[in-house]
């Protein structure tokens, strides 16, 4: 699977399909840090929110990189559909990890904060960004061409889901009692960003529990996708 992942990564980079989401994200991040000093928790929570959007966009791009016939050949060469799908996820995760590393390290090394982050803040930052990028990936896999053949159909739907997951806090309050479950099943991006923004070392347990829920939610989506991919026709 190492060779398969390496091939997918190489093809994705050569195809330059990563360009739009990565540039969008980096420019947005640079705008946030266009002045200094910045508050640590506030800044990281905003970049985590942006990374969530960029990770979902990048995820769709990675999943759609291989043409349908090439996916068919990869499945035969690798010997399993699930191997190919898992390698695609690893490939997307590597890209997202690199974005996360830039996001976390850039402001510290460029001296954008009023002070150096504490150990707990480092942990919150890494976990928060990685959790939200994993959640973005988990959502994005269901908007690739094998589920929704046209980008014109998948991208608006993806944007709606991402926006709903940001407003789920206020949405839950306004929904009638019979529809409150909608707020609960939406991706928990809002709650994790809120925990990051209001981060206080005394509330570490609260952050960890939301973080765990986010990771479980994202892994659940990814596991469903891998499971489905073994039981469906390949994109033709």
């Amino acid at each position, binding site marked *: 699977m190492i060779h398969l992942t390496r091939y997918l990564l190489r*093809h994705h980079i050569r195809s330059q399909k990563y360009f739009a989401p990565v540039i969008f994200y980096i420019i947005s991040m640079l705008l946030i840090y266009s002045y200094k000093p910045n508050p640590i928790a506030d800044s990281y929570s905003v970049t985590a929110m942006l990374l969530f959007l960029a990770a979902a966009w990048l995820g769709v791009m990675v999943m759609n990189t291989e*043409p349908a016939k090439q996916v*068919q*050949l*990869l499945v*035969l*060469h690798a010997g399993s559909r699930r191997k190919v799908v898992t390698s695609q996820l690893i490939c997307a995760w590597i890209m997202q990890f690199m974005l996360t590393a830039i996001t976390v390290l850039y402001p510290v090394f460029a001296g954008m904060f009023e002070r150096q982050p504490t150990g707990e803040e480092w942990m919150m930052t890494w976990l928060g960004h990685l959790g939200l990028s994993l959640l973005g990936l988990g959502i994005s896999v269901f908007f690739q061409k094998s589920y929704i053949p046209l980008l014109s159909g998948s991208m608006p739907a993806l944007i709606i889901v991402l926006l709903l997951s940001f407003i789920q806090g206020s949405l839950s309050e306004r929904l009638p009692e019979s529809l409150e479950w909608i707020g609960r099943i939406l991706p928990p991006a809002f709650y994790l960003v809120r925990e990051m923004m209001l981060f206080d070392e005394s509330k570490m347990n609260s952050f960890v529990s939301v973080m765990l829920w986010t990771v479980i939610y994202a892994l659940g989506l990814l596991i469903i996708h891998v499971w489905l991919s073994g039981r469906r*026709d390949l994109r*033709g």
Partner: protein
Amino acid sequence: MIWSILGFFKKSDQASPDLSDRGILLQQVSKRLGHAQVLNQINLEVKPGECAVLVGRNGSGKSTLLRMLAGILLPDTGSIHRILKGSERYAVDGLPRLPFTSGEYLWEMGRIRGIRPEVLRGRIRELSELLYLDTAIDQKLPLLSKGTLQKVNLIQALLPGPGGLLLLDEPLSGLDIPAQEAVVSLLGQWKDEGTCIVTACHETLLIERLADQVIVLKKGSVLRYWSREDILQAGEPVVCIQSLAGAGEDLANDLSIVQQQGVMSLVHNTSSGISNAWLWDWKVVQQSTDDVLRMILASGGSVVSVQQEESQLHMESLLEGQHPAVHTSRGGVTESVNLSSSMDDAGGEAQ
């Protein structure tokens, strides 16, 4: 060179037919894509060391059936049993033009397949030489011609060597004649070594030399099965004659001509630029050629060319479900006369 390749692959791969291998068996397989029933109750059995050729017009379900055999599509109903050592390999119809050179692409596919680097290097080199890839091995796939891209497509499918199930979608499409000969020879040798081959193909070269069974598909259903014996029974060679007759002289409606023994079809060729004479294309059975030529000359016409068809198989007949020895002429050309008699009582009815 083919022999050297065979020796090369024998060293490293499973090759000899195994009695425990029972091949691939499809029973009552159906598939619907969207609103279209693309495959309808297909039965097929291909044993190790056999070659099955799928023929049919566009949209008849050949590629879908290949994808089903590859496991890319799952059947809605019916079952696919695969008792065969070795892996599946597949040459798709139209390799995507990815941003890699041919060499890089083949290397990546071989490594993903799990072929060791030293073995893979040798296989790429030998297969590239066999298919005359030459300098194209260092060219990017988007810059390759259709034929060269097809060679890369075939090589990626042939990389693992003989054995297993080899699925080829129009393998000879776009290839030059030497490459076609090389591919057919190699496939013939791999077949003898136990490779199970299923291919969608319209080239008579491959059908005549390799096919153990020919499956004629029409609108997703099997119209006919033909065995190796049926293919070998293909009739006597056909001779194509071009003749000139006076302008306005309609030979196709002259019963004494069209009923002449051995004349299979007579078509007015409108592509000639001659204004004071009409060009006629004849197809006649070989043993009547002399009689027909005498008749043309006696009627005041002149003979432009006489040429024997290389293949004795007749794809048009095959596609219509008729015995491959039956000759038919199809429309699209003016004033064609179909004089063939039906021989479609041979072969296997689709069950």
